[in-house]
């Protein structure tokens, strides 16, 4: 199947935030008002009810000029997703489009994915059921997988009026991003494509005007080593050990019984065991 990805060209973004509203509209998310942030930015970062947030960054470049940078931030939909790896309930999976989705029925709200996401884009939402009991679920951008299934593009992409957001075939998008970076080099010498390979590449790639760190992005994100050790070594070995000790005691139980019977026989014959 052809791989489709979201393309974000921050150099074309005008910060209108229609993507944020379109996301809430399609996904039926409630308003999530915050305290005054001291800047144009409305939310400090993505949250359980706000799956994409427009970042506003006042950056002084090397020449001392002020650059007012915007970035549409949301889940990257990693090819090797740490959240998928650490989810104890297999609630997180890759859809056939490569998007990373959370099965809300399976999610138990443990928050392992929240803590292990290298981009910090997953949040827990607290709900109250009809008995008044609270429960939690992990929430994040779904890349509108439900729309993709209907042959539509993600809501944020559809609404974007500057061409900053696009959704298309992976190689074409990467080519476009590389071309755009070339065009922008004069204006933004640090411009670069952000498609981190540490997580196997992402299903949202960026044309960034500045270094990733300027946007608060990790320069080389990867699945946390701890998660690899945990899921690929510790847990399987742990399970093996439990199995081994269990087998040992079962073995002990059996041999004890056999030996006891023999002893009983011997004693019947009047033999001393010592």
């Amino acid at each position, binding site marked *: 199947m052809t791989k489709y990805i979201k393309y974000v060209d921050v150099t074309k973004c005008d910060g209108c935030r229609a993507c944020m509203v379109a996301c809430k509209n399609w996904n039926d998310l409630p308003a999530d008002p915050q305290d005054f942030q001291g800047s144009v930015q409305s939310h400090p970062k993505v949250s359980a009810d706000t799956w994409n947030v427009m970042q506003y960054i006042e950056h002084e470049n090397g020449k001392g000029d002020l650059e007012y940078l915007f970035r549409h931030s949301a889940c990257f939909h990693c090819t090797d997703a740490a959240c998928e790896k*650490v989810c*104890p*309930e*297999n609630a997180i999976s890759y859809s056939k489009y490569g998007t990373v989705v959370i099965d809300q029925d399976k999610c*138990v*709200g*443990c*928050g*392992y994915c*929240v*803590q*292990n996401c290298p981009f*910090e884009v997953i949040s827990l939402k607290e709900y109250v059921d009809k008995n008044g*009991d*609270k*429960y*939690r679920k992990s929430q994040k951008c779904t890349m509108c997988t439900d729309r993709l299934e209907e042959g539509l593009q993600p809501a944020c992409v559809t609404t974007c009026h500057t061409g900053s957001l696009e959704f298309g075939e992976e190689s074409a998008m990467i080519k476009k991003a590389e071309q755009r970076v070339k065009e922008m080099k004069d204006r933004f010498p640090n411009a670069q494509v952000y498609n981190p390979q540490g997580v196997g590449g992402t299903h949202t790639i960026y044309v960034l005007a500045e270094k990733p760190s300027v946007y608060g992005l990790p320069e080389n994100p990867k699945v*946390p080593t*701890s*998660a690899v*050790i*945990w899921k690929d070594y*510790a*847990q399987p*070995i*742990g*399970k093996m*050990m*439990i199995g*081994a*000790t*269990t087998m*040992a*005691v079962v*073995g*002990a*139980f059996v*041999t*004890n*019984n*056999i*030996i*006891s019977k023999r002893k009983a026989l011997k004693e019947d014959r009047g033999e001393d*065991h*010592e």
Partner: protein
Amino acid sequence: MSNQNKPDVQVRRFSKGFVWAHAINGIAFFALYITALPMYTEFFDWLYPVLGGPEGARLLHRIFAVIFCTPTLIYLIFDRKGFFRWMKELVTWKKRDLQFFTEFVKELFGFNFKHVRQTFFNAGEKINSIIQILCAILIIFSGFTMWFPQFFPRAIVQWGYVLHNVGFGLGIAVIVGHVYLSVVHKNSRPGYSGVVTGKVPAWWANDHYTEWYEEEVKKGNFPDLNDPKYKKEA
């Protein structure tokens, strides 16, 4: 020594403080185990409804997590002396302790074995204690980061998951053996009632913890089983 002619003299092996601490520790451990199982493996997902859903399981896990932290204190407060003896024994290792293991395996599987002279705790119990203490530290501290991730750097929380997992896997593996020996295995069974009542048969104590028993005899606390009067009685 034959089973038929054992004197039924009981001696106090454990203080009340220890008994309580051990009981709470054990109950909390298993409660934590049960409430964590469905998250450890999907095989046990059926436990969720029993535990009141993931939220119920989480709540119970946290209640027992707090309880799990208390035995050390109980032991320390109510049996200070015992606690320090335990600590001291854990760091005291002699050649015979290694010998113990070879004999232990024989005993475990019911083959003929001979008792290696041991102090208050035998080498197996010491190993069990050390592993459990390490696991408890791992589990408690990593659990803390998992419960309150907002107060810790993400890397610490991420490693917390691993350590919790390791601590749990290791702990449960050892516990399986520990429980088997006390509850099921015929030779250590008196140990089980001992940890519940605090008292064990004198002969059993003498067999398994010879050095300790003899010390106590010297102090005049325990009866000397070699005293013919016991043999007579038997």
